[in-house]
C-alpha cells in the first residue's frame, strides 16, 4: 500500500507541477457503496480488443469510478508485461507454458503461480473473394492444400467436386496469410496440422511457415483488406474483424459430415469436446480437440491473472472485473461487438468458480 500512496503522491505532485489536472482515476483500488473504484492495466492479445471494449464499457458503466485499460499490444507483449509487473492482468492467445509458469511474477504474492482462464472463444473465419461465388464448401484437406499452395486455381477439380452447381472461374488462387506473428495464425495452423496432417506437414506456429508462400498482410484488418481488394483471394481472420457481408467458407472434416460455417455454436461444440490440462485447481488451460464435430478453426484466448495479488486492492478489482467478463451476462455482452462464442456449460461454471477465488 505504501507504494501506491507514493504513486498517488507523485501523481499529485505532477498535477501541481504541470497544472493541467485530471488523473485517470484514484489509484487506490477497492470497493465502496458506489461500486468499485481504482485503475487496472491489462495488456495483451489484440484479438480480444473488441470484446474487452464491450466488457470494459459494461464494467465501467456499473462502476463509474473504476477505470480498466486494455492495451492490445499482443499476446507476447502481454505475457511479458504481466510477468514484469507492468500489467495487472494479461490477455493471451495461448496459456502460459510450463516454463513460463515457474517464473517470478511481480504482481503476485511470491511463491504463488498465476492462473489461465479461457474467457474469449472466437471462430476464425475463412474468407474469400471470387466474383459471382457466394457460397463455398471445402474439406479440411482442400483448405490445407489451398493454403499450402498445392491447389492454385479456383476451377481445380478438387474444389469443383465439393461445390456442385457453383460456377467457379478459371482464376489463380491468392492465399492471404498474416505477415505478423499472431495467435490467429497459430490456431489456424494448429487446426490444419490436426485435421489434415498428410498435407500440412509444418507444425503449429504463430509465424506463417516459410515453406508455404502466399500473400502476407498485417493484422486481421490487413488480411480482410487484402482479401476484399484482390480477386481470387482467400484468407483467414478472427470473426470479430470480419464484416458481416463477407463471404465465408463452410467446412466439413471429410465431406461426409455436414458443412458448417464459423458460427458461435459450431465453435462451442469443439471447445466443449476439449480436454482440460490444468496445472492447478483453478487453472483452466485447454487442449483443443479439433477433429471433433463442429467448426475447428477456433481461437481460445485466456485472461492470465494472479491467484493471489501482492496488493489486495488490486486483487479485489481484478476479481470483480474478471468475474464480470466470465459471467453469462458478460459473455453475452461481447457477442454483438466481437461475434464470440459465449462460454457455456461446465466450462463456464468452472471458470466462474476459479475467478471468484482470485484475491
Amino acid at each position, binding site marked *: 500500500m505504501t507504494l501506491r500512496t507514493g504513486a498517488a503522491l507523485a501523481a499529485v505532485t505532477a498535477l501541481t507541477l504541470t497544472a493541467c489536472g485530471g488523473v485517470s482515476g484514484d489509484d487506490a483500488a477497492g470497493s465502496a457503496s458506489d461500486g468499485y473504484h481504482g485503475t487496472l492495466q491489462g495488456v495483451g492479445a489484440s484479438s480480444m480488443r473488441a470484446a474487452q471494449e464491450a466488457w470494459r464499457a459494461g464494467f465501467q458503466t456499473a462502476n463509474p469510478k473504476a477505470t480498466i485499460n486494455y492495451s492490445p499490444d499482443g499476446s507476447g507483449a502481454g505475457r511479458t508485461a504481466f510477468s514484469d509487473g507492468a500489467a495487472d492482468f494479461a490477455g493471451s492467445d495461448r496459456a502460459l507454458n510450463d516454463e513460463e509458469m515457474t517464473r517470478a511474477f511481480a504482481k503476485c504474492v511470491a511463491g504463488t503461480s498465476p492462473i489461465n482462464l479461457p474467457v474469449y472463444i472466437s471462430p476464425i473465419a475463412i474468407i474469400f473473394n471470387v466474383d459471382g461465388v457466394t457460397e463455398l464448401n471445402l474439406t479440411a484437406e482442400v483448405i490445407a492444400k489451398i493454403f499450402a499452395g498445392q491447389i492454385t486455381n479456383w476451377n481445380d477439380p478438387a474444389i469443383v467436386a465439393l461445390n456442385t452447381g457453383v460456377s467457379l472461374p478459371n482464376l489463380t488462387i491468392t492465399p492471404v496469410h498474416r505477415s505478423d506473428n499472431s495467435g490467429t495464425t497459430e490456431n489456424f495452423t494448429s487446426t490444419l496440422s490436426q485435421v489434415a496432417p498428410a498435407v500440412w506437414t509444418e507444425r503449429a506456429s*504463430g509465424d506463417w511457415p516459410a515453406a508455404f508462400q502466399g500473400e502476407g498482410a498485417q493484422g486481421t484488418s490487413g488480411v480482410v483488406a487484402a482479401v476484399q481488394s484482390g480477386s481470387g483471394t482467400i484468407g483467414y481472420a478472427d470473426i470479430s474483424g470480419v464484416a458481416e457481408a463477407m463471404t465465408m467458407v463452410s467446412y466439413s472434416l471429410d465431406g461426409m459430415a455436414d458443412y458448417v460455417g464459423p458460427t458461435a455454436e459450431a465453435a462451442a461444440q469443439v471447445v466443449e469436446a476439449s480436454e482440460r490440462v490444468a496445472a492447478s485447481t483453478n487453472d483452466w488451460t485447454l487442449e483443443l480437440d479439433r477433429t471433433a464435430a463442429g467448426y475447428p478453426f477456433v481461437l481460445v484466448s485466456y485472461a492470465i491473472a494472479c491467484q493471489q495479488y501482492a496488493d489486495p486492492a488490486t486483487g479485489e478489482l481484478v476479481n470483480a472485473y474478471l468475474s464480470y467478463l466470465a459471467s453469462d451476462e458478460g459473455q453475452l455482452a461481447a457477442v454483438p461487438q466481437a461475434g464470440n462464442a459465449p462460454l457455456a456449460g461446465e466450462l463456464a461454471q468452472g471458470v466462474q468458480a476459479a475467478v471468484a477465488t482470485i484475491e
Partner: protein
Amino acid sequence: MTVTGGNVVSEDLAPDQSLLVDRRKLGDPVFKGFSVGSGMLILVILAAVAAFLIVQAVPAFVADAADLPYGNTWGYVAPFLFGTIWSSFLALLMAVPVAIGIALYISHFAPKQLASPVAFVVDLLAAVPSVVFGLWGINVLAPALVPIYQWLGANLGWIPLFGGNVSGTGRTMLTAAIVLAIMILPIITSLSREVFLRTPGLQEEASFALGATRWEMIGQVVLPFGRSGVVSAAMLGLGRALGETMAVAMVLSGGRNITFQLLTSNNPNTIASNIALAFPEADSHAVPQLIATGLVLFVITFVVNMAGRAITSGHGFRLAHKRAHKEG
C-alpha cells in the same frame, strides 16, 4: 575569432559600463557552454541508443543458433537487410528527381500566387502519419496498380525485375517503394526548396545577362548552389525510408526470400517492418534477436551516412559551393 577589442574600448569609455562588461564576459562562456553541451548531449543520446541496442542484442549473437527462436541471427536478418536497402534505394530513385522537380517548380517556375499554396500542401503532407500512408497504400494505391502490374508482367515479364507471378492484390515491393517515395517526397522537397530559394539573385541575373536560358541558369547557378542542401535532404529522406515501420508493415506482402522481382507476392520484408510485425507476439527469448536486427539497421544507417558524406565532400562540388557562397 575573438572580440575582446570591443570590451577594452567600452571599459575606457565609461566607468558606468563595468557591470555591462562583466555580464558580457559571463554571457559568452555560458552561451557557448550551452551550445557545446547540446552538441555533447546528441553524442550522449546516440551513445545511449547504441549501448542499449548492443547490450540487448548480444545474446542473439553469442548464443548457439539452435537455441534461438529464429535460428542463426545473420541468416535471419539477411533477407530483411536486403529488403530494407532495396526498398529504400527504389524509393530514393523515384523521390529525389521528382522532389528536385517540385522544388525547382516552386522556386523558379511557378507563378507567385501558386508557389506558396503548393509549398503549403507539400509541407502538409509531411504531417500525414505513416499509418495513413499505409491505409492509403492498401486501399487506394495497391488496387489501382494491379492492372499496370499485370500489363508489365505480361509484356515486360522477360525483364527479371518484372518476372515471377504478378500479385493479385498489388501489395508488392514496387508498391511499398512508391509509398516510401511519396512519404519522403515532402521532406526532400521542403529542404531543397528552401535552399533553391536562397540562391543569390545577383548570380542568377548574371547568368541570364550572359544569355543563358532558364534551364542553363539553373544548371549553372541554382543546382551547384543547392547541391549540399539537396544531398542532405536526400539523406534525411533515406533515413526515414530505411527506418519506416508502419507504412511498410501495412503495405508490403513481406516474407523472407531475397529477390529483385518487383511485382510478386513474395518479397523480402524490411528490418523495421519485421520488428513491428514480430515484436507484439515475441517472447522474451525472441526479443534479443529482433533487437539485433535493429542494431544491424542502425549500423546500415551509419554506413549510408558515411557514404553520403563522402559524396558531398567531393572536391569539385565543394569548390562550386564555396564559390557560390562567397559571391552571395
